[in-house]
């Protein structure tokens, strides 16, 4: 039974690392898309003036 707990710890940490990383790069992608959208809007606005 104790070994089963250790097995869950091992898989838990592994999943935390893998999905934590996936979550982090997914968030970074959407933040960059927003930033590029804002920058493009700024440039377009500048040209209109």
């Amino acid at each position, binding site marked *: 039974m104790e*070994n089963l707990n*250790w097995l869950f710890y091992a*898989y838990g940490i*592994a999943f935390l690392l893998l999905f934590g990383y*996936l979550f982090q790069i997914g968030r970074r*992608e959407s933040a*960059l898309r927003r930033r*590029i959208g804002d*920058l493009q809007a700024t440039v377009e606005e*500048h040209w209109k003036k």
Partner: protein
Amino acid sequence: MREISAADPPAVPIWMAGAAALAMMVHLYLVFVWVPTEATMGIIQRVFYFHVPAAIASFVACFVGGVASILYLVKRDNKWDDLSLAANETVVVFEAVNIVMGSIWARRVWGIWWTWDAKLTSAFLLLFLYSAYLLIRRATPVEVRGPVCAVICILGMLDVPLIYMSNRIFRTMHPAPVIGGGENSGLDPRMKIVLFFGLFTMLLLWGCMVRIRRRVASLERAADDLVRRTNEMIDQGV
């Protein structure tokens, strides 16, 4: 340069993300329910079905990162630098998974968390090298970043054969290889199925990660370029 827009398709196609999620669930079912328990080590041996595929995924990532670095040095095309960065970052993630799981297994089976034997030390060296790569990448000026990082990455790739061969050449505490390890090695057919399915799952997940990270790298480049162009426009009073 191609314009980036919110309407761009996602970095990972839906079918690929769905297949990775489904494969992960099936793999967990196989590991926790279907596969027989190993006779001597007991249930903790099931760490093996995630520990080994994570190691192999990190080796594949090293190889892809190394080849992309060579192509970058030859062609000087940023897409290869982006791919190399994406692959190298996943080396750190998968190697960390491999080492943490191995360490937990060792605590139960050997009674210690860590020992500096050839296999473990060379695996730690890989994690250390690629972590250093990521730090150096941040610290290096943009103009020389690509070539400097490509050279480090190619050197890092050389550690992979050392890890693979270490428990074949040296006497180590690490268990002997169960596949391709000689006469006395071998694995129960059901264990082999779970191991190979785990490898398939891990590579699918790795593919998703690399695609997203490569997209992030190209978006970062596009954002830097836009900022530079905007500043130039402001400076010229356009």
